[in-house]
C-alpha cells in the first residue's frame, strides 16, 4: 500500500486518470483508511474546482515568456 507521501505525490495523476489499475487500487485503499489523506484529496479537488472557475487576465506574450523562462531557470537551479 502507498504511504502518505506517495499519495501526496500521486494525487494529480490519480485525478487525471493516468495511474494504472494496481496503483489506483493502492491509492484508494490508502485514502479510505487514512483520514488526513482523505482530507488532502478533498482539499486538492476543492482547490482545483475553484481555480477552474477563475478566468485569468490576458498577459502580453513577452511577459508570459519572461515568467516561464524565470520559472525554468529557477527549476534548473533547484535540480
Amino acid at each position, binding site marked *: 500500500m502507498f504511504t502518505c507521501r506517495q499519495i501526496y505525490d500521486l494525487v494529480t495523476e490519480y485525478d487525471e*486518470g493516468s495511474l494504472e*489499475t494496481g496503483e*489506483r*487500487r493502492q491509492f*484508494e*485503499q490508502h*485514502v*479510505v*483508511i*487514512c*483520514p*488526513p489523506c*482523505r*482530507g488532502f484529496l478533498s482539499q486538492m*479537488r476543492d482547490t482545483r474546482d475553484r481555480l477552474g472557475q477563475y478566468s485569468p487576465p490576458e498577459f502580453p506574450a513577452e511577459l508570459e515568456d519572461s515568467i516561464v523562462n524565470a520559472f525554468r531557470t529557477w527549476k534548473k537551479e533547484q535540480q
Partner: protein
Amino acid sequence: MIAYKFLSSGAIGLFSRHAWPTPTSDAPGEWVRVDGEVKECLNGVHACAKSQLVEWLDDELWEIELDGAVLEADGAVIAPAGRLVRRLEGWNDECARAFVGHCVDGTVALAAESLAREGRATDAEALLASRSQPGAELKVFELARNLEEDQSGPVRFAADMARLEHGGRPELDADAPTAEAGGPTPAALAANLGFVCAHITAQLAEQESAGAYAESFARERVSQSSWLAEKLQLEPLGDAS
C-alpha cells in the same frame, strides 16, 4: 445482484464524487450506468460484498442493486450499472464508534496476551486495565513510555492505537479537530482503526510465526467485516454473501 456501497455524507461517491440518485419512499434510486468496458478502479459501478465491508467504510451504507455482468475484483464487485435500493440506517456514528471499540478491545487483548507470554503479566494486566479506566489513552501512553526499550512493541502499537481512536496522530501531540471542524468523521476513524488493528494483529502473529502476517491480516479484516455484518443484521442477499 444485491451488494453494498459506502458513500460519503449526502450519497456522494468518495472517489468519483458522483451524487447518487437516492430512493424515494416507494421506488429505488434511478439506475446509474457507465459507458464502455467495466474496469476496476477506472470504470463501472463499484460496490462490495459483506466480506469486503471494512475495505470501504464511509459515512453512509447503502444496499445497491447491480445489473449486467459483475466483475469480482480484489476487495470490490464492479458492474456496468447499479441503483441504490435503501440506506442501511444501522451504520451510523454510534455504530462506527462501536466498531472501533470492538477492534481496539480485541487488539488490546491480543497485545496483552503477547506480553503475558513473554512473562510480563503485570504489564499485560496494566494494558488490559487501561482500556476500562478514565484517561485510557494517557495510561497506555505512560505504559508505552515505561517500556521504551520494548523490542516487540505491542504496547507501543497500542499507544498509537489509543491516540488514533480519538482522531489524533501518533506522531503529533495536538488533538485532532472534531468532524464539525474538518476533522475525521466517525466513519473515517473506523476505517482507520480497523486497518491499524488488523495491522497490529498481523504484527503480533508475525512475531509468533515468521511469515504469518499476510494471512493474519486478511483473516482479521474478514472477521471485522463479519462482526459489522452481524451488527447491522445484514441478510444474505443474492450473491452478496
